[in-house]
């Protein structure tokens, strides 16, 4: 556990979580962020230059989480400018567009890039969530099936995945909630291992155990 994350354990009521959204250009990262933060969808939005971020509070199980969502430009050339922002992340959202197979194929690259630059220790479970965006598109335009996505996630030990539409607002809230739940789950587990006797941990364990149904599977270790 890095010191950055230790500092942000939910000891107080409000926890700041740093979320990075990664994925190829035009999969809808900025739209997802804007839909989640301001519940808007802009057909005429610009492609992202540099790095942007927005904050949004999310209430979950009587706790408030302030999500600090980082949105970056995807092009390869800007990698050296983007990767430093990975450090200190609590959650990583890997995104692709269901109508573009290549964006799905690149998930592996994004995951590797993240793990490398976020300085996550090997074999440490990290709260990833895989998001297949543009679920509003008709089935004729779909290039990635839900089964394919689930298979990839299983192979990669990722237990949180969901299809969303930033355009229709479908599942966007759910995606972020799911991500936070995954974070809580892993964090609680880490706490349990590190500090066996701690009231707050017990308390949280209850919360999490009552809701494991939202996180599919548990093969993340």
């Amino acid at each position, binding site marked *: 556990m890095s010191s950055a994350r230790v500092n942000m354990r939910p000891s107080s009521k409000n926890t700041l979580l740093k979320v990075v959204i990664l994925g190829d250009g035009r999969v809808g990262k900025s739209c997802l962020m804007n839909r989640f933060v301001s519940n808007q969808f802009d057909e*005429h*939005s610009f*492609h992202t*230059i540099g*790095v942007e*971020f927005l904050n949004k509070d999310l209430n979950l199980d009587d706790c408030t989480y302030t999500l600090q969502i980082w949105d970056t430009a995807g092009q390869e050339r800007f990698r050296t*400018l983007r990767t430093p922002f990975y*450090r200190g992340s609590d959650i990583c959202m890997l995104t692709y567009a269901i109508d573009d197979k290549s964006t799905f194929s690149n998930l592996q690259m994004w995951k590797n890039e993240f793990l490398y630059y976020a300085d996550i220790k090997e074999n440490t479970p990290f709260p990833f969530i895989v998001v297949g965006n543009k679920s509003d598109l008709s089935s004729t335009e779909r290039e990635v099936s839900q089964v394919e996505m689930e298979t990839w996630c299983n192979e990669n030990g990722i237990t949180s995945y969901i299809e969303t539409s930033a355009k229709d607002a479908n599942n966007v809230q759910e995606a972020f909630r799911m991500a936070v739940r995954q974070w809580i789950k892993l964090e609680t587990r880490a706490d349990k291992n590190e500090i066996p006797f701690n009231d707050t941990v017990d308390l949280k364990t209850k919360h999490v155990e009552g809701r494991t149904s939202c996180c599919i599977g548990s093969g993340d270790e």
Partner: protein
Amino acid sequence: MSETSESDEVRELFVQDGVLLFSAAASFINFVKSVGTLMITEYSDGTKFIEWKPIDVTVDSDIQDQEWAVVNTVEKRIRTLSGTVPPEHKNRSKYLRISFEDIKSFRISDKSRRLTLNDGKSEPICTYLFQHGNCDHLVGCLKTLVKTVASRRDKHLFIIPDIKDPEHEKIDRSFAELNVCTDSAYAWKLWNNFQERPVVATFEAFAKITDLVYRGPEHREIDADDVKEILNRSITEYESTTTTHSQGDYEVIDVPDLPKRRDFPRGKPLNLEQWLGVQDNEGRIEDSECIKLMIFQGGIVPSLREEVWKYLLDYYPWNCTKIERQKLVSQKNDEYFSMKLQWKTMTKTQEDNFTDYKERKTQIEKDVSRTDRTIDFYAGDNNPNLQILNDILMTYVMYNFDLGYVQGMSDLLSPILHLMQSEVDAFWCFVGFMNKLSSNFDADQVGMKEQLSNLHTILAFIDPDLAAYFDSHDSGNMFFCFRWLLVWFKRELSEEDCMSFWEVLWTGFPCDNFHLLICCAILTEEKRKLMDNNFGFTEILKHINELCGQLNVEKILNDAQGIFYQIKESEQLTDVVRLLLGLPILSNNSFDNHETSPFEESIDASNGSSSSPPKCSVDNVRISPDEVTFEKSLSSNFL
């Protein structure tokens, strides 16, 4: 690295997190490359130490050497304090502890990000790398605790003189005689300042004296001439035996007294009458500098832009006749369409076997559909202008395949095409613009990093407070100005404003890198908001991002021009800043130092047609074979 008993009281005088142990003696080799906390401590027996303790995170050298690696949302501690340390911190056995007595000198490098401690033997004791901000605070604190003297040979080296050395007693005595400086550390600071900045330091000394004079009878009143004499005597005495004035320190402690900022109201835009007036019978423009100056001062009336931009963007040479222009246009027309044909005729198979090309093509498609769609000219589905935007960018890929297409280029082209309404004209004007800005789109982003670093240099000159604030708030890399610089404020301004802004910058007046002065103008304007709110890295970035749509072009141009004259007329103007702004260098001795920063070395290159590639600004980067493989796999398309 001496032993101190655990029962000692320890006072931490200074603490800074995020300091990486870059190199150290063999006994600490396990901690090399780990991040930790650097402290100045004082034990109850009065001995002082520089201590470093690791936190249990190891960082790859690649990550810590990244220029942007200062980014973290967690607040960093930099504090000076004097409380005793809570019990749990008493176990200091893992600490790398260096007694002040063992430190004979220290050296500051890498723009104050590296600090090396020496014990006077051939190998340094250790080197620290400051991942967050720099070592200025630590060194500042150090300087109040020990005497330091800038080395004559190496302006980045500071010697801690041996107190028992008779030469130093002499100076102590002189200061004591003076009775001006009640504590000797202050005297030494003054002395150092005097060496570095004689004029300022002398004023400071006089200010102190004035203080004493007005403070009342308990202090001996001193005649200013006496002081000057004593000061001079002690200085000459010292100088003749040990050292000499060292010019320019690694930091500017005192705020340079810039001349007052003057107001430069915008002038009237260049109009048709004036434009025709400067052309001779055959349509040549004799005095292009005069025209550029007029544009710099007031811009161009919109109806004339389409024509004048072709000159500003080096499509039309200023001195060509009307007939020559017609010839040029038809020739450039052919050239354009033959390049366009090259990619238009590419078959599907060719494309599939040409990954680099296909990648550029996909990226262009992706970005064109998200470029200025709010403007009528590009709005709506299947807008033919989007196709033209696409075609010009594709043809540019064929024109300059090495550069290809990089995000941001579509933003630069969009207003040009809108104005020209002609594919060919827009293309060649875009080529001219890209020639001015191509380093923004380097594969390794060296150009952007260099610009951000240059911006910091200039800001540190005109507003050291603000620059220091950024340094101490994880923002010394100026990353938050990235978007401004990449597309020259395109995203911050309306299309109309953007046009009148760009044409001013294209003139090249009043100096090189004027756009960096624009940044300084905005930043100094925002200074109070940033500092009063004590914004950290994320808030600064957010605040700057949110200036989008808030900027007043006339005002920022006016302010930047004011700043230019402030710098130009400043008495303390340094050669580094002169070089950046393309002002003549006065002295030629300031670059004989081996600590020349990479951007300084490459200035000539970037001013000209970048003949030699700029060096990467991180020295001593160690890359393991694994990292190389990884890098390759990530960026294989650009190798």
